């Protein structure tokens, strides 16, 4: 019974089309309070006084400040620099300062507006330039979260002998992930029973780790459960640790369940976005079209706290030279601090415009590494479990989340294929840190290739146990498997198997020297865009888009095409529409009417093709796919625009205003 490569029905499909799927805002707990966050209004400063004004029955409210935190006041991630609640100093204009809870959410909003903050402003910085020039030191000793350097060959010598030297500076803007379901959680917390959180999230064990530190409780006293999640795109990687902590603190103090669900404006303004970036590329080329050398300076704006900037920077650094063979390379990269809300991960994108080396217009070739960068997978040590029941069903136990990309479906396919069972006899357990092992975060295009491989080996462990006990012969039917499971469970009580990540042979990374194999495998792609420029309005429209990629074996052709189509749609928005407008470190167009994302009318039929080249260490030969399509669309579209207009554009988003300027500049 072959399931890999076939378009089996999505596991949660029926619930989603009938309105039965329950997201966090659909859940109501008895005696539940609603929570709200009082945030700073200034970008940098010192809290002088907090007062509670207005005609508000303040005695009915649960009020939490930094003083109420039972453990450590930091969101544990890579570094411990970001507080849950500012105690004295404020580092960005959306910094949480105080939390409120009340049964009436309308009164709650009224109350939130009546908390008066007296803040002494301190000088703040908002641009990469000011941060690099250390106009103010706002983080550490030098505003630098992280820097990397890659050296290969001798770049300094190539400039003399090069036939051509091409230089360019490229800028990309912030991008809001804009999942249609805003961030939300419900928490129940008490010193006796510990902390339980249900929420919309990508990485339950990130939240688990953060709550351990916030409450200073033992591991088994913290439980994090992912509920149906309405999109993530990297925006629900680390931010849920913040909102989960806030709801849990309010519950801890009030003794009642607390729900916090952001409204759209708060979610857009306060949560993480894609890092804005600046890149300088200097490339030496020979007359016969060979790349001789590249020197690249890559800087990203991390916002006020370190969050995941080091990881994002590392991926960017390794992808900066593109998929080309080049003997001499120097890459210098830095992640710097500004007084804006921290930027997090977003479905990764690398905009490396290549038209001057490649003659084809509206064309981009690129690659994307699957799995955590560098030694990431080695440190994560992800674990997946599989459990068989007496009626021959198999449950996959993993913390990898279904956020729309198809985790549940492909895990079931991989397991069904490995065991030669029906797809319907495989279930995927809900991610719940109380019930499933830590299979790592659902990020970095790692779920299919890395975690999927662990699913495969965990279920094969079930089979081995049954064969080893003499209960299952080599060629078995679904019914034989069921009988074997029943006999085994009758004798031994349970049938479980766990599998832990081990790097494939020959894959090594040196953290110190920053060299080696940063990823087990890469996905490769060539994208072609066709655009029309309206010469009156200067709007650019993508008329046709062809995406050809090699992602190893395709597990589910429709879901895989959906990942590519969706990524390209987001990338079209990133390139042409999505312009975050900042004022003093704050996003001021935080609504869907003035931060424009693509509708059905803005997206062409995206034509998706797969070249299948199975990867030996992926499940059934599969690699990663989720982030790949974000990388190629922007350069393909900008190259197509250059082909159409002659204007060479090096920054995105490309708004019509910029195109007018670019064209006016060239003709005048």
């Amino acid at each position, binding site marked *: 019974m072959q399931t890999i490569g076939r378009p089996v029905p999505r596991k949660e499909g*029926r619930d989603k089309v009938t309105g039965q799927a329950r*997201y966090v805002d659909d859940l109501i707990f008895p005696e539940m309070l609603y929570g709200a966050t009082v945030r700073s209004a200034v970008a940098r400063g010192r809290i002088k006084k907090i007062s509670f004004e207005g005609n508000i029955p303040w005695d009915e409210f649960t009020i939490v400040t930094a003083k109420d935190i039972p453990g450590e006041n930091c969101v544990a991630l890579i570094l411990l620099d970001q507080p849950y609640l500012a105690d004295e100093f404020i580092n960005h204009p959306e910094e949480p300062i105080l939390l409120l809870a009340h049964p009436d959410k309308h009164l709650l909003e009224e109350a939130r507006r009546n908390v008066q903050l007296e803040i002494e402003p301190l000088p703040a910085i908002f641009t990469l330039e000011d941060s690099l020039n250390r106009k103010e030191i706002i983080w550490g000793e030098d505003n630098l979260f992280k820097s990397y350097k890659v050296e290969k060959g001798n770049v300094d010598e190539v400039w003399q002998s090069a036939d051509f030297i091409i230089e360019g500076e490229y800028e990309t803007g912030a991008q809001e992930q804009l999942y249609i*379901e805003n961030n939300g959680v419900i928490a129940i917390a008490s010193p006796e029973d510990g902390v339980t959180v249900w929420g919309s999230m990508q990485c339950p064990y990130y939240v688990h780790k953060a709550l351990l530190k916030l409450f200073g409780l033992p591991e088994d006293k913290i439980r994090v459960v992912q509920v149906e999640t309405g*999109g993530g795109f990297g925006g629900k990687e680390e931010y849920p640790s913040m909102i989960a902590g806030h709801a849990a603190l309010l519950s801890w103090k009030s003794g009642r369940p607390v729900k916090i669900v952001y409204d759209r404006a708060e979610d857009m303004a306060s949560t993480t976005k894609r890092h804005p970036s600046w890149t300088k590329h200097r490339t030496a080329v020979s007359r016969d079209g060979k790349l001789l050398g590249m020197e690249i300076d890559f800087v990203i704006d991390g916002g006020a706290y370190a969050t995941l900037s080091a990881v994002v920077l590392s991926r960017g650094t390794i992808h900066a030279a593109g998929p080309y063979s080049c003997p001499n390379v120097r890459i210098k990269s830095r992640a710097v601090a500004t007084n804006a809300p921290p930027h997090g991960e977003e479905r990764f994108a690398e905009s490396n415009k290549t038209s001057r080396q490649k003659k084809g217009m509206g064309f981009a070739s690129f690659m994307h590494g699957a799995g955590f960068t560098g030694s990431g997978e080695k440190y994560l040590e992800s674990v997946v479990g599989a459990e068989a029941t007496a009626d021959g069903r198999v449950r996959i136990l993993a913390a990898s989340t279904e956020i729309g990309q198809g985790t549940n479906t492909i895990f079931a396919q991989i397991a069904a294929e490995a065991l030669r069972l029906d797809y319907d006899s495989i279930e995927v357990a809900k991610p719940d840190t109380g019930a499933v092992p830590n299979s790592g975060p659902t990020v970095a295009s790692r779920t299919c290739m890395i975690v999927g491989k662990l699913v495969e080996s965990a279920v094969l462990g079930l089979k081995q146990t049954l064969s080893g006990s003499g209960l299952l012969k080599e060629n078995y039917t679904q019914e034989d498997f069921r009988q074997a499971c029943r006999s085994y469970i009758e004798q031994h009580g349970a049938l479980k198997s766990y599998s832990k990540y081990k790097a494939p042979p020959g894959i090594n990374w040196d953290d110190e020297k920053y060299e080696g194999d940063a990823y087990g495998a890469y996905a490769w792609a060539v994208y072609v865009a066709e655009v029309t420029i309206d010469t009156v309005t200067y709007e650019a429209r993508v008329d046709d888009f062809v995406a050809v990629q090699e992602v190893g074996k395709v597990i589910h052709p429709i879901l895989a095409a959906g990942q590519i*189509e969706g990524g390209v749609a*987001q990338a079209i928005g990133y390139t042409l529409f999505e312009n975050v407008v900042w004022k003093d470190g704050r996003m001021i167009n935080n609504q869907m009417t003035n931060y424009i994302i693509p509708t059905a*009318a*803005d997206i062409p039929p995206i034509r998706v093709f797969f070249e299948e080249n199975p990867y030996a260490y992926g499940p059934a030969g599969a690699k990663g796919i989720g982030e790949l399509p974000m990388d190629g669309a922007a350069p393909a579209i900008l190259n197509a625009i250059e082909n159409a207009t002659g204007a060479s554009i090096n920054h995105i988003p490309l708004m019509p205003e910029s195109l007018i300027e670019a064209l006016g500049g060239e003709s005048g």
Partner: protein
Amino acid sequence: MGWETEYEGFLAMLDEADSELLATEGAGSEEIKAFLSEDGEARRRFLKQALIAGGGVAAANLLLSYRLNLFAQTVESMASRSSSTVESAVTIPITLRVNGKTHALNLEPQVTLLDAIRERTGLTGSKKGCDRGQCGACTVLADGHRINSCLALAAAYDGVEITTIEGLANGDQLHPLQEAFIKHDGFQCGYCTPGQIMSAAGLLKEGCPTGMGVRECMSGNICRCGAYNGIVAAIEEVRGRQA
């Protein structure tokens, strides 16, 4: 602008209602007079919003009944307590008809149709993505027409037949659109999906205007997962079968 003329007309009606109220109470209480005049500004704002949102006559009627209730409750509360603050929790009775079931509710007049459905009928399939009519996740049918339920006031839909995603299937038998969305993978995370499907159901009935494709006619429903190819294919398939 049409609403401006309507607005002036309704204001005149309301002023008339106010003076009648004052007259029936014998124009006695200074507090009531003060209340009516203080309240005037808020009332004008509310009426204007309701008219711009397209509530029309229903909104004006609603406002009149709200005023009567508010007035009665104000008189009552003035009799029972000395405080000059007036509680805002004035409710009006409405009959919400959702998926063939009738719900008799007392709602504050500012409660949106979306909140009434989600919080008072137990049907949470309709989603709140923006609460501003910008994303379409809250789309429901009102007497067969698709509307953004977050922009509609529940009281303006008293007695109107509302259909939500939960009411689309016929028991276990999915609606052809639901089947087609599954077949063409017209969704990923599923959060915009109830709105997409209800919007498509409305579209099937109204048809696309000449020169406009399904993509344009569905452009009020945003899908960030970018499942537009699947959404459009699903709708085209069901439309094709109907034609």
